[in-house]
């Protein structure tokens, strides 16, 4: 069967500017594969990002994009989604962007359960600003900003945070396995509700600890080990395995998914009339409106 959109339809003319070997190439590829598999219309797809190496991603695709400021991709995306809920809205960015400066928005977007897919390229470092500690840097990691003792804070665990905050699709992927990542992204886009896909995406330039090999030695597939992704308690138990409980085994795959929760868009009263972007402007009967002031 001939598909309407080829893989290349989704590519823009701009070549990715990432370092050779950067994990973000895999995330771009996985996203492109997913939207191709779903045959999404590029003009009805909006990709919003913040600032960071990873946040440059929207430029490399032929969809609509909004390359926002650092840490604010989610609220920009939420505003766009509310204005036009018919858009497929995907947010991309880094760990600093989403779990550091933007972590407040991260929690609130999830508790609202917007129908938005969020791909975080988690390299456990600040790439664009040349290698400072990130909120997911491991304890003890020496970086430009933690040169003496290494990081002395605990890392943020985005998976537990997402489960606790009301995300309804929570997954972790790895840039070393594009195929599985693409599948998780595709399912995330199709999911009706907020989907977080935390993508372990090695920074080959500034993170010499959490490398491809580091992950290859440790990752395992949740689904292959029979994890029940409809069970929130089991999801929490799996979530805390890494980095909290131990460092030897890192679960990948779908932690949790439920379709039973209405999205924000389902509940917002103003959207009952249809997409605001298509509603008539102005007030039909001003006298009725003015009466309360008389």
């Amino acid at each position: 069967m001939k598909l309407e959109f080829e893989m290349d339809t989704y590519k823009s003319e701009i070549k990715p500017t990432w370092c050779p070997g950067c994990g973000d190439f895999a995330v771009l590829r996985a996203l492109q594969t997913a939207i191709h598999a779903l045959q999404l219309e590029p003009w009805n797809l909006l990709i919003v990002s913040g600032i960071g190496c990873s946040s440059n991603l929207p430029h490399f695709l032929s969809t609509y994009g909004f390359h926002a400021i650092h840490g604010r991709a989610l609220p920009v995306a939420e505003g766009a989604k509310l204005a036009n809920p018919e858009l497929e809205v995907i947010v991309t960015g880094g760990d600093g962007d989403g779990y550091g400066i933007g972590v407040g928005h991260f929690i609130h977007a999830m508790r609202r359960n917007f129908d938005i897919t969020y791909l975080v390229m988690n390299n456990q470092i600040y790439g664009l600003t040349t290698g400072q500690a990130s909120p997911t840097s491991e304890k003890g990691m020496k970086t430009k900003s933690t040169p003496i003792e290494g990081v002395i804070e605990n890392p943020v665990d985005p998976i537990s945070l997402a489960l606790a905050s009301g995300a309804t699709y929570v997954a972790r992927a790895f840039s070393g396995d594009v195929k599985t990542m693409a599948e998780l992204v595709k399912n995330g886009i199709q999911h009706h509700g907020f989907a977080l896909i935390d993508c372990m995406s090695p920074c080959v330039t500034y993170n010499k600890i959490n490398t491809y090999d580091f992950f290859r030695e440790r990752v395992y597939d949740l689904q292959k080990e029979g994890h029940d992704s409809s069970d929130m308690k089991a999801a929490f138990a799996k979530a805390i395995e890494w980095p909290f409980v131990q460092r030897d085994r890192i679960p990948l795959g779908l932690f949790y998914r439920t379709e039973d929760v209405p999205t924000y868009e389902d509940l917002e009263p103003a959207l009952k009339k249809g997409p605001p972007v298509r509603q008539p402007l102005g007030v039909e009967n001003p006298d009725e409106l003015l009466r309360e002031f008389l």
Partner: protein
Amino acid sequence: MAKNDLVFRIGGAAGDGVSSTAESFAKMSARSGLHTWTYSSYQSVIRGGHVWTQIRGSLGPVLSHGVDPDVVVALNQQSMDVHQGDVVEGGAIVYDTDGTKPDPAKLRRNVRLIGIPLRKKAQTLSPNALMRNTVALGAVVKLFDIDFRHVESAFKDIWGDKKPEIVQQNIAAAKLGAEAVGQMGGSLNLGLPYSNEAKYLMTGNEAICLGALAAGVKFLAQYPMTPASSILHWMASHGPKYGVVVKQVEDELAAMNMTVGAGFAGVRAMTATSGGGFCLMVEAIGQAGMTETPLVAVLVQRSGPSTGLPTKTEQGDLNLALGAGQGDWPRAILAPRNPEECFRQAAQAFNLAEIYQTPIILISDLYLGEGYRTVEKLDFNVPIVRGMMAADGGTAKDFMRYRITESGVSPRALPGMKGFQHVAATDEHMENSELISDVLAGLPEHVEERRKMHAKRMRKLDGLRKDTPPPELWGPKNADLTLLIWGSTWGPAHEAIIQVDETEGVKVNSLEFPTIFPFHAEQTEQLLRGAKQTLAVEGNYTGQFTRLLRAETGHKADRFYGKSDGEPFTWRDIADHILEAVA
């Protein structure tokens, strides 16, 4: 001179129901046909602390909340202590004889003391403590000879058909108050000929909401902050009916960023806040300037710095609005002077935002935003102009979102429009959205690309200057003194000008600025040419506007009267400074 207005002040502790009683009275005044104006002085706590509201009703247009009251209701001893000395000769003080005592030595001549056991009387009807305010209100209505039917209709508005017994109890309570006054000398006999033709009464914030609705706003994201919160409240209850998404969000960062997202997706979008919240919005409003995203931001000022005086007025955030965001980007700042202008400018702001694809800031303040004023019937037939869209003529093939144009405005496309896909970028970019920082930085072309793109955006200021309302000169042409004013200072300033003319024969006019930025320098210079002496009056410490005026025109105001004590200007404040200047 026959008296043509009434001034009523009510004071009590926070939680005593002062503001709702005052609101009811304001409604009655407007329904009696009086031009009405209110000012509430209140605290940032919910219980305790002293609060008072002043309402002025006038046969002719009213320009300020007035100075000294004809009638004071003192709901506690503190209110008595604070306000008894202000009551005009021949006026009256209504108070609860249980627990409140006037000090005759502090009163002006012939002030009538109307002591009523307010609480005891109220308790004969209902255990509700707030009912004593209704007894007092009945007394005030009688003192001013207001038609009792307005009392009944005000209570019906509040409790509606659902609680007829409460309406009846309150009517009975008001009657008790009125009867008490009847037994203690009757009304003040002000002789105001009430027309009883109801006038529209609203706050500046409500007028902004109405203007936004008239212009077709479809999105409001906001985080509560006095004195902007009533915009959120009004829109939350009315918006959905008109298809407006109204969202209280996690903080002002989110409020502005969501507004940017909604504006980008193609709806008319707004946010509102006060100075503290606006501080959190500055990075994101610059983002809108850079990505050329339309939006309207309402900044209702209160006293700063920092948390400041949360419930007090000031005009101290002009520099904040002028300088918000890093780098230079085009913006317009409109400063409404009264509710009618709040309505008109709010509606206009959405057109400007979309025509010029950039943020428009509406700067107001607590005095204007929260005070109730009567207004003429608002005309909802406002022009709606949505600006240049790529699909209107251009083809997808040669579409570039940031095309360099003479006006600085490039064709816009909304997500969903087939073939016009592009990335809106906060990094400096080329016509096709490609980032200069990534691709070109280091190459010599970068300098030219950047220069061209920056100049393109800034050219929008020329159009904005043409499309925004110019400065206006109000009052006699040949004046001894010209006031320089903006925003809510308008009312008290006009009243001061009228008063000094009537009482002293001093001729003063005022140069006022419905648009603060882009500055209309040429017209300003022209209008200033005939000025003999200038007095800048603004509600801040350093003269933020006065300095802008000097920077833009070279004109240094001869005199400056800045006020930042939290209370609004009264006409008398300004009149005193006028007389000092022309002495």
